[in-house]
């Protein structure tokens, strides 16, 4: 009996080893949002161009992306060209200009092109707060039923698009 007890540390270690092995390949950066499976929260935001007030009902039908960006955010520079590519492929992207200034944002879109079907200003970051955004860029996938299906923290690029595509 005592002999078997002595093997216990070894066995516990083996189990741990197996668990670790299966964890290795996983993407640990991925943090799901509490909003997954929920509709987009209520909002009232002003558009960047034309300064109209838009509400939740004005969101497009069918699936689309919500992309939080800002002219102050270096990673958004990196991300922008890929958003342009996606827009050319016909992906609908709603841009939320997050904690930013109107003039700078307009200049940005004039210089770099506009991949967004609609750009809304979230100057105070209230909508970002409701969406649980921790920083820019962040991208949410909203499916055809109007529910949030996926959240990506960080830059949207060809690699992360492979994952995101499946949720659209």
């Amino acid at each position, binding site marked *: 009996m005592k002999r078997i007890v*002595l093997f216990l*540390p070894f066995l516990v270690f*083996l189990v741990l080893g197996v*668990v*670790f092995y299966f964890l*290795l390949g996983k993407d640990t950066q*991925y943090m799901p949002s509490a909003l997954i499976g929920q509709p987009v929260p209520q909002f009232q935001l002003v558009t960047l161009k034309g300064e109209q007030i838009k509400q939740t009902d004005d969101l497009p039908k069918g699936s689309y992306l919500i992309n939080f960006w800002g002219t102050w955010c*270096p990673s958004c520079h990196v991300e922008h060209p890929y958003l342009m590519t996606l827009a050319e492929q016909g992906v609908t992207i709603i841009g939320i200009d997050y904690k930013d200034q109107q003039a700078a944002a307009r200049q940005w879109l004039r210089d770099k092109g506009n991949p967004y079907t609609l750009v809304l200003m979230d100057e105070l970051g209230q909508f970002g707060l409701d969406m649980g955004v921790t920083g820019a860029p962040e991208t949410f996938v909203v499916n055809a039923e109007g529910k949030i299906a996926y959240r990506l923290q960080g830059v949207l690029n060809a690699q992360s698009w492979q994952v995101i595509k499946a949720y659209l």
Partner: protein
Amino acid sequence: MTRFMFPEIGQFSLILALFFAVALATLPMVGYFRQSRLLLNTARPLTHIMVCLVVIAFLLLAWAFITDDFSVLYVSQNSNVDLPLRYKFSAVWGGHEGSLLLWVLILALWCLAVALRLDSLPQTIGPLVLSVLGWVASGFLAFLLFTSSPFVRILPDVPTSGGDLNPLLQDIGLILHPPILYMGYVGFSVAFAFAVVALITGNLNAYWARWARPWTAAAWASLTLGITLGSWWAYYELGWGGWWFWDPVENASFMPWLAGTALLHSLVVTEKRGVFKSWTVLLAIFTFSLSLLGTFLVRSGVLTSVHAFAADPTRGVFILALLVVLVGGSLLLYALRAGQVRSSVNFGFSGREAWLLLNNILLSVLTLTVLLGTLYPLLFDALGMGRISVGAPYFNAVFGPIALCLMVFMAIGPFSKWHHTKLASWWIPILGAALLSMGLAATIVFWQTFDWLTWCSLSVAFWVMSMTLLDWFNKQFMAGKQRLNQWRTLPSRYYAMVIAHFGMAISLVGVIMVSVNSHETMLKMSPGGQAEVGGYVFVFDSMELIKGPNYLSDRGHFQVYQQGHLVADLHPEKRFFTTRQQVMTEAALGAGFTRDLYLSLGEKLEDGAWGVRIHIKSFVRWIWLGGLLMVLGGMLAAFDKRYRQKRKKA
């Protein structure tokens, strides 16, 4: 153009080092089983050569950093022309590859230390210990060479300036923190090697404990210093004034510390009384395994944390394989061999053995608590139940009470005698000390209106202090019916214990005070404005823009007054590192014995105003002061005269 060969020479010496490590791992082992003195004696020269080669590789990498050789990929990722020289040197271990090389270097230095002290060990034991260390070295050298060589070149397109060192790491605390922490981590490999050799030779008598003790104490002291430094660094560099976050990487260094503390105590019992033999061996394996696990968790990207610098699955698989071979192998060896050990000595429930056993049980429970808290999210994920994180609330709720409990007994342990203690002889001083500490704590709590939990914890801290002093007084003046003025020389290992225990109590006072007596506010301040926090008046004088070597900085000038007197000038900064486009907050500290003034800049607001975060941290220095005392205790124990005798020539 010879300088351009240096990285290749570095790579080559690492390859050679691997060969010598493998030879070290096998030849003395074969020598032991074949009873060949010749093969056993190869251990020392093999170690010397391996150490030289690793040192050469390390120096060549450092040279590549100092001379800005950006053709080396690792250098170009972690350094920059504008980086100050001291950071260029510390950038050697700023990334994954280099810190692994540092790991190997420190392991090599420990091997060298053992090789130099070989004369104090029996003729078969020493070479075998080196051989086991050779196993560990081979594993890590192979890991270094096959998955993460720091000498990989990017030719022919050599970048001209480099990607710069992570700004978080551009700090004196980070120059020192990793090497010292690794000294601790890796140092436990020596205790591990002794334990494995004891298992291999089947010679599990009390001697191995005696040999392993100073090494364990030295490793423990380094680890304590490393953790203390890390906590201090996080406090002033991360900019939100915390000193411990229960972050997975912190836990990774804390677990070996807890297990190592248990090992330190259990080795005493094994050496002095010959009990807990098999448990001590297991604990030695366990401690080093936790060090390896720490390396694995930090380096494989299995856990996310503020510290996770490198994440690469192939490396993860390699470290896991290494863990399986080293830890699995030694645990299997343990399972096969430990059954032969029989402890014959009995001990009473009031003897020191029993107190130390209690110490071991509580420390093991604490280790498992932290281990569970750290791994729980992983297990949860592995079972497909999604991702969760176990944060500070869990650790504080579970860890706190057990640790306090441990400290209550910590005060009694030294008082007790081996085998059996007569209760009647010591209940009066104990009761006295208990009442005194509770009274003192009650006075403070009443005066400052804290809650009963604070009272409890403060009582425990005072209890440890008073009991430690009382015990010292007893042993110094009362023992052997001497007169009061006669000075006995107590052994330095006794003082080691007194100082370390006292340090623990001082840290506890710091921890308690900082959590109940601190003030914290976030305000909007403009130049010329002022604010009062916790009895101090903070005056925001002005802002200026300054240019550092590799950053631009907004620097604030603040004066702090207490009752009309100027107590501190604070200069918090917001640095923008140009190469990495990263913003760093440099907090300003007004350090003091009983309180720290802590000021950091938040967001820049409109019309020149700034968000300013002000903390008054009560007794926060005591946390690290206690840590330093523990280090001193550990060093004293490691260099005790008793362990320095050489083997008598037969």
